[in-house]
Each structure stands twice: as structure tokens, then as C-alpha cells.
């Protein structure tokens, strides 16, 4: 996982997606062809770090390496620029996780290669003003 993580670390740390230079369409994750106008003139764009929950779930099953996170809260979040992102929700009471709750991005450990291997970091979101 190390090399792909290294390649993407800045996108994971700062939530960097794309903006179309022709029609200003924004999206996360990054794209190479604008889904809206099909332009190839694309630039990196840091997404807003705040938004609202539009759907959520509490998951009781995990992929290898995420067992310690269970149950895992996951949100579908509409960021302040209208772009949707799916993320784990942390540092939030389960009863505060609801539709239209305000959230902000936080920097967190995502996973690790065992006890002495590489640690992977990235974005998660937490409920604010609950």
C-alpha cells in the first residue's frame, strides 16, 4: 500500500479534488475528464473542510484491518461547495449523527501495516455544533 499512499497523501491530508478549468465543475476524488463538459483542462482544488450529513450508517462489519473501528459510523456528506464525499464519522455521539448535522474534517490515523509498519493518515469528519 505504501507507494499508492505516498502518491495520494496530499489528497488524503487536505481533501484535494479537481476543478474543471473550462466550466468550473468541482468534484472529489480527482477526475481526468470533466464529467460535465468533457474538458481535459483540469486543476487540483482543495475541497471545503465543512459540510452537512445527507445520509449515514452504522456499520457492524469490517474489512481486514478495520476490526477495531467497529461499529463504524460512516456519513455521506455534502461539502459546502456542493460536492459529495463519503467518510468515516468520529468523535461524535451516535444520536448527533443525523441528516443535516454540520460536520468538519479532522486529520486522523486510517490504518497501519501491523504494529511496527507504516501508519496511514487521512481525513475523517466529526459533527460540530450538535
Amino acid at each position, binding site marked *: 500500500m505504501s507507494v499508492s499512499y505516498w502518491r495520494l497523501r496530499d489528497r488524503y491530508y487536505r481533501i484535494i479534488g479537481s476543478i474543471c478549468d473550462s466550466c468550473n465543475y468541482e468534484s472529489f476524488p480527482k477526475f481526468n475528464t470533466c464529467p460535465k463538459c468533457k474538458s481535459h483542462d483540469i486543476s487540483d482544488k482543495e475541497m471545503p473542510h465543512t459540510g452537512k450529513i445527507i445520509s449515514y*450508517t*452504522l456499520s457492524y462489519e469490517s474489512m481486514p484491518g478495520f476490526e477495531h473501528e467497529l461499529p463504524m459510523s460512516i456519513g455521506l456528506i455534502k461539502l459546502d461547495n456542493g460536492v459529495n464525499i*463519503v467518510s468515516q464519522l468520529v468523535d461524535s455521539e451516535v444520536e448527533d449523527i443525523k441528516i443535516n448535522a454540520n460536520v468538519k474534517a479532522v486529520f486522523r490515523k486510517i490504518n497501519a501495516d501491523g504494529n511496527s509498519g507504516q501508519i496511514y493518515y487521512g481525513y475523517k469528519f466529526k459533527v460540530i455544533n450538535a
Partner: protein
Amino acid sequence: MQTKISGTGLTKITDHWSKSIVDLAIDSARQAISESNTSPDMIIFANTLSSYSSSQENLSTIISEELGLSDITTFKLESSSCSGAMAVNIGHKLLNSDNLESVLIIGAEKMTDLSPAETIKATALGESYEYTQFFGITMNSLYALFSRLYMEKYDVTSEELSQFSVLSHKHSVTCKHAQFNREFSLDSINKSATISSPLRMLNCSPIGDGSASLVLSKTNNSNFDDVNILSSTSSNSSTSFFSREDLLKFYSTTSCLNKSLAESKIKLEDIDLLEIHDVVPAITANILETMGFSKPGNASSDVLSGRYDLNSKVTLSSSGGLKARGNPLSATGIYQIIEVTRQLQNRSHADLENKNIGLCHNMSGIDSNTVVHVLGVAN
């Protein structure tokens, strides 16, 4: 273009501990070849997990050799959960554009050699590794996010949507190759363990091994009635449903349906048998509503009123669909086509009358890549 389904074969969907993916593929392929009374000119092997679950690729060559078929064209086709129907789509096109008489389509998936956590990862391999798997986002959690959006928009509860799970299990009771041959009450479904809220275990399609095969040919040498592919269409949209303008709109399904009706020259009301990608209830409902079989938000109440029962005008998932027949990913689309074929030939487990046209809808992800077939008995 004319393609006939001249051979079918399948295994029961279950935990096949003693069989490898090759053993499973050969089981169903031999049945299909035997039924068709032909030797195929080409083999397309549909599969999506073999490199992960069996540490094996080049399976089309291995399986062809094991079937004793050499000096033919053989290859693997991977398109996540719709690999099976996509292989039929490509086989149908090649049969009609090349100097071929028959094409063998084999779909097989070996899922139970993996640990439970690995299986959960396996079902998410079709989603972005970098932005979903990396963060531990499972496929069922994406289905759950979609389900809550559906429930919010149409003010439908998860308990009401569970009517689809009741229906699936009711239809699979007499189907011998189905993974489950028992009914579940609405209450027991709604009290089963939560997998990813609001989805419960008995709302989600199960994990199972299985293989299904078809022989497509220009002439039917089998002992069964002609069943023709009246249309075969496919369409893709964004891989992730949450990057779409309208999160609940199934763009690929809509496009496939429109192209299918035009190509087959049938009307929606002509369809008697429906096999759709009924992987969780809200997605089942949204497919039925997208296609126009139910009004938006009404599909679960239509199930309750009996609209999709075995002996109704439009039968839904007559062998239990993905939930109760089972969902061995790349084989699923082929199980669907076999179900409709055998119903049209009056040789399925359920003795349904006056069924002439069937529609099969198989997709990967949440409508990210969709394939639709319309099948009919020959006039």
C-alpha cells in the same frame, strides 16, 4: 441479430468446500454443452474475484483445457458484479458478427475460501480502492447510505422495504439450486442482526459459491423450445453513486431499458418475468420504479399488494433473486438468464403459466455498469 439460448447449466449456490472455482465452472459448463448438443467455437469466462479468492488467473485457458476443448478462442471477461450478463452481451455480439456457430458463456465465483473480513473486502473491489477501500468503507455501507436516501425521499421505512426480502425467500422455497429454501417472516427479517444500519442481515444478499453456464448459438439443437435474445444492451455511468447529480437516479438502467424496448420492439407491459439486481431492498425498489413497473416510492407497497408474486402478471425473481437464490457475483447475471429461459420453456421449479417475455437486469456497483437482456419464446 438472432441468438438462441441452446444450453443451460448451473450448480447449487452454497458453500462448496470441496470444490475449486475450476470444478464449479466445469460442472455448469458440461451441463450446458450437453443440453446444446454442440461443441462451442468460443468460451467467455466471466469472473471478478479469482485473483483475490483463488490466486489464479488465465482461468479461461485452464477451464477450456479441463473441458477438453482446444484450438478455440477463449478469454476471461471482468466487469465486477455484472460480468456474467456482460459476457452474454459480448457473446451475443460476437456470435452475430463473426464466423461462429456457438459461444459458451461460463460464470463462476468462489467466495467462501476467503475469511469473513476478506469476503467483505472482496465485495467492495468494484468500488474505488483509493477512496473507499482505503478508508474501510464496505459495499454494504454504501448500499446503506443509498437506502437511507431512498427512505428519506419517499418516506418509506426499512421495515416496509423488508417486504422484498419476504418475497425473495417465498419464491426460492422450491428452487433446488437456491442458497436458501426457506421462508422468513417480516418480523424475523426486521429483527435480524444489523449489518450496516438500516440494513439487516436478512436484507442483504448472501455470500456463496456458484457457477452458471449458457450456450448461445445461431441454431437450437437442444431438446427444448427456442428461446431468443430479443435485445442485449449495456450502459455505464459514474462508478460511485454519490458523484451523480441526482443521487437516486439510475442513469444506466434508464438507458438500458430504453434501448432494450427499442431493440426488442416490445412494450413494458409485455414483460411477464423480471430478474433484476435485487441486492438490497431499496435498490430493488429503485430499479422497479426507474423501469416504470411501480410508481416512485410505491414499490414496497406494491410487493405487499401482491403485484410481483409468482402468479401475478409480472413475476419478480421467481427463484428468489440475489437475496434468496444467492449472489455469486459474476455468475449471478447468468443464473438470471437461465431462470427466465427455463420458465419460458416450462421446465423451472415454479410452474408459471402464460409467460412469454422476460427481462434480466444485472449491474455492478450501484448502477455504475448495467446490462439488460430481453428474452422471448420464438414465434
